[in-house]
């Protein structure tokens, strides 16, 4: 029985280093190839030795697909392709292809230049890796090889994020990557058609959360920023350079404009301007409103938001700073945090999810003393606010996507085990489909039951459809009869007559003749007339003809009456039918033996 196998190497009951292996119809696909922010050792990358113990991956994988540019989805890509070894195609959308190498280079710099790690991928490896990338357009059907095709759908979440459908023959899998079912200030909502995949692999970051309306969250965010600035405090918003940052910038920009605020807003890395430029060039990937008005006013040209310089952090007075990275695990955001953490007037707003082990995760859990390098401890006095702005689907959104795609099975990744459990129950209850949540390295096998495509002769099909009528009767289904010819990998269903002709066979006629004796004191013609009347009343739905040459024909069964001169009242009824009318012939001979009603 054909099946689909799915094994997460990362993101199985966890968030981070997303990497999922799919085997479908003899093809092997790797979905995402991410790194884990919570680790600095081997666990940082997916365990590729699962695929093969020694040597390169090229012969084991038909393609690699990257859903979006976040490092937990693409951070291990150069390691996988250049250090482990993979030369096959890597698919990603144009914006992802544009932005991914920049983030990889950033990641590399922090790891190698700042932390001094060796045995890490180099700039050249990033470049070589990107040469293997084939860009994907939305809704384009890409034929990876003769059998394997992939198609990308819009996922929201970040610029260029995509969900992918993977199809071999009639079997298919959809992988959502990270997605967002509600449009935000700069991106649209994820969308997929009713493609009925055998299995839908969905992220489940917010498996248990039903988030309140976006408007409320935005108002809350603005209120907190405003209050802090009013009392002279500094606001730190750790973000990733691309994505949430742009949404929050648009939000603050319009608020500053409306309220006529003067406190400076800074954006920390040199990437800002460049990042905004990507948004301008890939405006077709943003939401409807921005796309419609971009000629008049490009939303990504900010007036109030300026580039940040390291020295500004010590400036007196209020300010708002967007700094990378988003989980406070390294870099500029962590540096600024250290400077500002001691003052209760200040505030840090975490607008997204933080992986376990990061400073962000610790302070969100209320930790007030942090151990820093060199045994120093840091007192956290500033206010810590968490606001879920990261664009993941919440429980409601996940259910909505299931309704859209109508999968036959469901598989959850990219979430915490406990929360997944809850969502899994909910999905199984509401949709009556199986839901899986494998851990890393654990394989889920789904038996598919594909139907068999066959070429049917148009004559046969049309004849059947005409006979079946426009509204087939569900209680009395019509049985159609055909001959399936199997020749050189082709399967053709034709009428038996055509099959005989095509195969050069002649038909063998099988006939039956049966004589029934009957006492009937009438002339032969009258007896035949009485038989006709009798059959007419018994066989209501059959074609019965009384032919003037002295026969009654029921369908193709011939009935004649003879008598001998000696005994004119003893009639011999002659029935003759072919094998094709066997049931009716058998019935008629039995019926007539019982005599005619008087």
């Amino acid at each position: 029985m054909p099946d689909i196998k799915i094994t997460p190497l990362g993101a199985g009951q966890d968030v981070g280093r997303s990497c999922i292996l799919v085997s479908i119809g003899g093809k092997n696909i790797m979905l995402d190839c991410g790194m884990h922010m919570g680790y600095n050792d081997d666990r940082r990358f997916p365990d590729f030795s699962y695929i093969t113990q020694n040597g390169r991956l090229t012969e084991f994988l038909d393609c690699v697909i990257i859903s979006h540019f976040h490092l937990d989805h693409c951070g291990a890509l150069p390691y996988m392709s250049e250090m482990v070894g993979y030369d096959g195609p890597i698919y990603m959308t144009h914006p992802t292809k544009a932005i991914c190498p920049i983030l990889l280079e950033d990641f590399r710099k922090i790891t190698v230049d700042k932390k001094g790690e060796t045995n890490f991928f180099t700039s050249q490896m990033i470049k070589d890796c990107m040469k293997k990338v084939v860009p994907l357009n939305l809704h384009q059907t890409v034929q990876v090889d003769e059998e394997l095709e992939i198609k990308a759908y819009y996922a929201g979440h970040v610029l260029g994020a995509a969900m992918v459908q993977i199809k071999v023959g009639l079997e298919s899998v959809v992988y959502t990557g990270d997605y967002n079912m509600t449009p935000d200030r700069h991106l649209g909502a994820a969308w997929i058609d009713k493609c009925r995949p055998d299995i839908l692999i969905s992220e489940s970051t917010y498996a248990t959360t039903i988030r309140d309306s976006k408007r409320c969250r935005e108002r809350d965010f603005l209120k907190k920023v405003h209050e802090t600035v009013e009392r002279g405090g500094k606001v730190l918003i750790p973000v990733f350079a691309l994505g949430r940052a742009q949404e929050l910038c648009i939000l603050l920009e319009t608020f500053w404009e409306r309220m006529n605020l003067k406190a400076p807003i800074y954006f920390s890395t040199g990437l800002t301007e460049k990042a905004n430029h990507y948004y301008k060039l890939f405006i077709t990937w943003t939401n409807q409103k921005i796309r419609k008005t971009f000629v008049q006013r490009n939303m990504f040209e900010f007036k109030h938001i300026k580039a940040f310089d390291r020295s500004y952090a010590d400036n007196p007075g209020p300010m708002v700073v967007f700094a990378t990275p988003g989980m406070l695990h390294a870099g500029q955001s962590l540096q600024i945090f250290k400077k500002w953490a001691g003052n209760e007037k200040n505030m840090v707003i975490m607008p997204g999810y933080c992986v376990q082990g990061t400073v962000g995760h610790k302070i969100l859990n209320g930790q007030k003393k942090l151990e820093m390098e060199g045994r120093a401890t840091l007192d956290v006095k500033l206010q810590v606010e968490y606001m879920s702005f990261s664009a993941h689907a919440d429980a409601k959104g996940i259910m909505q996507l299931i309704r859209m795609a109508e999968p036959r099975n469901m598989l959850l990744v990219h979430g915490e085990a406990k929360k997944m459990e809850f969502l899994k129950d909910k999905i199984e209850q509401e949709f009556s489909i199986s839901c899986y949540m494998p851990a890393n390295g654990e394989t889920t096998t789904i038996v598919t039951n594909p139907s068999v495509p066959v070429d049917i002769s148009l004559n046969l099909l049309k004849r059947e459809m005409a006979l079946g009528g426009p509204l087939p009767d569900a209680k009395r289904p019509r049985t159609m009869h055909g001959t399936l010819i199997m020749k050189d990998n082709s399967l053709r269903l034709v009428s038996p007559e055509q099959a005989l002709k095509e195969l050069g066979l002649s038909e063998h006629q099988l006939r039956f003749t049966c004589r029934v004796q009957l006492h009937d004191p009438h002339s032969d013609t009258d007896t035949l007339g009485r038989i006709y009347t009798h059959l007419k009343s018994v066989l209501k739905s059959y074609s019965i003809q009384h032919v003037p040459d002295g026969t009654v024909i029921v369908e193709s069964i011939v009935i004649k009456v003879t008598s001998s001169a000696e005994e004119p009242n003893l009639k011999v009824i002659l029935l003759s039918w072919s094998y094709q009318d066997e049931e009716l012939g058998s019935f008629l001979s039995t019926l007539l033996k019982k005599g005619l009603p008087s």
Partner: protein
Amino acid sequence: MKLYCLSGHPTLPCNVLKFKSTTIMLDCGLDTTAALYFLPLPLVHSPRLSKLPGWVSKDGAINLEKELKECSGRVFVDSQPEFCLPEKELLDLSTIDVILISNYHCMMALPYITEHTGFTGTVYATEPTLQIGRLLMEELVTFMERVPKAHAATCWKNKEIQRLLPGPLKDAVDVWSWRKCYSMQEVNSALSKVQLVGYSQKVELFGAVQVTPLSSGYSLGSSNWIIQSHYEKVSYVSGSSLLTTHPQPMEQSSLKNSDVLILTGLTQIPTANPDGMLGEFCSNLAMTIRAGGNVLVPCYSSGVIYDLLECLYQFMDSANLGTTPFYFISPVANSSLEFSQIFAEWLCQNKQSKVYLPEPPFPHAELIQTNKLKHYPSIHGDFSSEFRQPCVVFTGHPSLRFGDVVHFMELWGKSSLNTIIFTEPDFSYLDALAPYQPLAMKCVYCPIDTRLNFHQVSKLLKDIQPLHVVCPEPYTQPPPAQPHRSDLMLELQPPPMAYRRCSVLGLPFRRRYERIHLLPELARSLVPSEIKAGVSVATVSAVLQSKDNKHVLQPVPKPAPVPPSKKRKRVMEEPPEVLNPKPLLSGAVPLEPFLAMLHKNGITEVKVEETADGHILHLQTEDVLIQLEEDATHIICDNNEPLRTALRDLVLRFLQKL
């Protein structure tokens, strides 16, 4: 399968394909050449145009001086320009299921088709096609509505009168079907019916047909279309280019194995080489500017203008003309320039990779930034105060009948220092210039048409090998002006099927198969038997389910068990319910093995008699006759139904069932 041809114009096609149960319109091009019969619409009052004499027939019998004006011996209609629409009477437009658009030039008649006709279908186009098509329509509407005409001239259309008019007005055809431009409201309504598609996206139509757009290399988002079922494939090639300009290159391999290829939109200027024309364009432009004159380039607001700007961007500095200002004047100039920069996915590799840097794909962004290129919505407003001469002006409409170009013709036409350079191939430049004669300004004709030429197309057809080619009639003969150039026509084997306006072609198709799916349970229950080496057959008895043009075969449901309470006898008296067709039989019943079989089943007294065609077996104890022949078996058995059925089953054992 039929093709209804609603337009005879080879580059502005409008055909309707009836394929399986669907009705598909391929493009709806608008023939704007009818506008050439009309007087230009000046933006600013033109004393010259208003003083043109009205037309009165020589004998004075017909006086149409209000409607017709004479200029340099030619007569023009003084009314809002009108366009020639696709044929509306050939078939009911409300029956059209979908419209496939190949590029933004081929959709300009869309509002005439989708509005006020009962059309309820969907239009498919790529995003650049939709956005730029919208701009071109918006521009057209603005051009017309900016200069309203109080009266519409209709008297001249009267058959009796038109007959007496001087040429070419006399020879204009179907003038009653000409229509004035649509409104913005109609444009918006028409475009709201567009569904966006990407290249290589497979779009299912009613489960019966699949359509797929492919890159055609001609303009931003331009596409050819594949229309196919599991067994038949029609390729629609419209406006394709193999030259490397800004759009994504043409996808050719997917056009292979077509049963029918509908070929439209070849180059209109087969004798001109676009690269050579570009060179001539630059040198004429430089010459004029150096002499202190201005250059007027009448053009569409999207398309070749991007390439012209890119070419000039490199050329002007090298020609030491770096300070010459370029002006692009159109109500949609800004939008067109902005939109061109955001369609990276639809551009050629070279431009695409710029976006990764990130840099704008077209250099006109830099021209704008450095103030070398300025764009204005019209000649009114800022332009009048900011413009410096000598300069280069890009503006529409290329017919010279409406748009800001009319003003520049009036302004610059009198000086021989100035030059007008025609780059768009859609209009005859002599006809376009007619209402401006006498003209002192220099005229240069550098038509740039990047679409396939006959040499390229014959090579393409050789590669993709369609079984049949359908094309507009003009492609099957040399151009009228060059009757000896047999290289400027399509010569194919079998010869192409030519169409003209109002043709209805039956396409050479014989559909023989349809796709059906056997449910896995049914497939598993089949018992194949080998008939000859490599060929197996299996008898399929199943229930057909057809829904949304998808067919599925299910196993025959098991009959519900007869409730035990019912008497058996009564059941017997009911006639057999369903006429389940029996399989056909094939093969022969060999005598000896059959006798052996009878023997095994206890029938031992058999008298065998040889006949001309076989044998007659007389089963003496049972008084049954069995005729065995090569292709037939006849069992004659009275009053013993169990025996008859037993014999039947014995015979069946020797036969194959189909």
